[in-house]
């Protein structure tokens, strides 16, 4: 196996993991602090991608469209919080699951009514559409490199926000003990609305940057939502650090499994068996990872709650 292939797959895993992190960060904070299971989180990712595609169509410029889409999605997220989700904080998890599942159905259909059922066009900006030579002889997509850069930047900002600012202190206080934080005067209500907006904005960043390489279509949020849940459970609910570690683990394990497992299997098993079992095992790998983590650490790698 050439080292350049190894490096390329590592970069792929990193890129995928960082985008998962953007989705998981909002999810884990909402879950950890508000104790709220929000299945509609993936729908905000879809809305972000659709808004980006729309703004690119209107303005003709990707870099102008992204901030607008992020802002728009954040506003939609806050609106959802103010109208529907706020009613659900005091309800049990199951009611939240049913209500936010209903929201998925509603948002999907509304998107279909506005934009139609066909996938939307969203291209990477012209200047990033080609490959760059990162090592002699190894070309890599410039756009994917940009995604890695954006992912690292946003992750850094988020860590700064959570660990160095007053709002971040409130968030951490809320994650480790909500009642106590409230008693100590943390302004919980506006904080929740703000947090929801931030979570939605992070989704929109992921949607905007993944849109050009994945299809912008209805239902794009659901399959990635399951992965985001896997990430936050591995990392430990409510922990930003856990979400980052979990996302990178899932991203790299999934990519490596798809790339190398069928190859490895074909060396030890007959080709027919390897061809059948390889892709299946690769799909199973992240779930095995999660089951194994939970078996040894039932609260995830970095439990936030004390």
């Amino acid at each position: 196996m050439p080292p350049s292939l190894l490096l390329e797959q590592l970069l792929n895993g990193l890129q995928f993991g960082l985008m998962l992190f953007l989705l998981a960060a909002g999810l884990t904070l909402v879950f950890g602090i508000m104790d709220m299971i929000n299945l509609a989180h993936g729908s905000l990712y879809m809305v972000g991608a659709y808004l980006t595609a729309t703004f690119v169509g209107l303005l003709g410029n990707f870099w102008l469209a992204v901030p607008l889409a992020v802002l728009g999605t954040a506003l939609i997220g806050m609106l959802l919080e103010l109208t529907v989700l706020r009613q659900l904080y005091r309800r049990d998890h199951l009611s939240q699951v049913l209500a936010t599942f209903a929201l998925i159905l509603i948002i999907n259909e509304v998107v279909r009514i506005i934009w139609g059922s066909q996938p939307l066009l969203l291209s990477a900006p012209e200047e990033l559409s080609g490959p760059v030579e990162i090592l002699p002889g190894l070309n890599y997509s410039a756009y994917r490199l940009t995604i890695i850069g954006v992912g690292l930047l946003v992750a850094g900002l988020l860590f700064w926000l959570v660990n160095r600012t007053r709002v971040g202190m409130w968030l951490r206080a809320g994650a480790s003990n909500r009642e106590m934080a409230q008693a100590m005067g943390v302004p919980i209500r506006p904080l929740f609305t703000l947090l929801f907006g931030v979570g939605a904005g992070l989704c929109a960043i992921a949607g905007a940057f993944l849109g050009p390489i994945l299809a912008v279509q209805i239902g794009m949020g659901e399959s990635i939502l399951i992965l985001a849940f896997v990430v936050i459970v591995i990392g430990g609910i409510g922990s930003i650090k856990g979400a980052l570690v979990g996302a990178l683990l899932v991203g790299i394990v999934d990519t490596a499994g798809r790339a190398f497992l069928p190859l490895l299997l074909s060396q030890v098993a007959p080709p027919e068996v390897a061809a059948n079992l390889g892709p299946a095992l690769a799909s199973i790998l992240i779930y095995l990872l999660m089951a194994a983590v939970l078996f040894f650490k039932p609260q995830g790698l970095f439990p936030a709650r004390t």
Partner: protein
Amino acid sequence: MRWPLLLVLLFLLAFPPIASAMGLEFYQGLLTKIMILALAASSLNLILGYGGMVSFGHAAYFGLGAYTAAILMREGVSSGWVIWAVAVGLSALLALLIGAICLRTRGVYFIMITLAFAQMIYYLVVSFKQYGGEDGLRARRPEFGLFELTDTALYYLSLAVLAGALYLLHRLINARFGRVLQAIRENESRALALGYPVYRFQLLAFVLAGALAGLAGVLMAHYTQYASPNLLAWQQSGHLMMMVILGGVGQFWGGVLGAAALSIVEEVLQDLTIHWQLGVGLILLAVVLFAPRGLAGLWRREP
């Protein structure tokens, strides 16, 4: 409570002759499907509602039942009774294995680890190309010796199985076993302190629910004459969960009401509009906001 129940039962018993006289066979099929789903949802309600174990992997047992039926038929086993026994046994065994591991965790971690195992089963089954892979597998109806499994026979069979299962669940829930299970749901530490073997009680309920879901899966395979990978997918687990939550978590009739209501709403709306999911979403949302204890909770007003 008795009278409406008896009325419904009479209606269900009398429906097939009426249906065939009036050319309403389609609705007989719809009722068969609702009864099968009601069985699956009720089995989930046992662990979810009474045991407080939110399993997001119930499709694994449901789908395993269907696949067992299809694979056995394909391999030349044609006796319905043998197929039922094997399917229920395998589902129970799978539930035992999964439950034994998953019950170490609690809360959302339990939800996710049950999902993980269901996903593993899904990908494993789909990888068997000789059993249809992603295309699913045809499952002809088996022989039962005493009767031929026509559409009408299947209707009555499903009704009998559902009634039997509900009777069993009713007895169980009101017996010591059910009380302890609910006590564990309310306060696990206290139940433990009182000396109840919490883990064993929970595992037993988990296995029982898995076995019943497996039986529902076999019936589903008889009904559609087909085992589809969708029966194993996480969306199916979610769908069953929605039925229970909609009907009423931990309400005895929750599973049945939820399965019937969701199926009927979907059926009616699909007939009316292509944007039917919008309607389903709005109705579900309204139920959560205005009927916090599900449909069964509307029926019984006292807290």
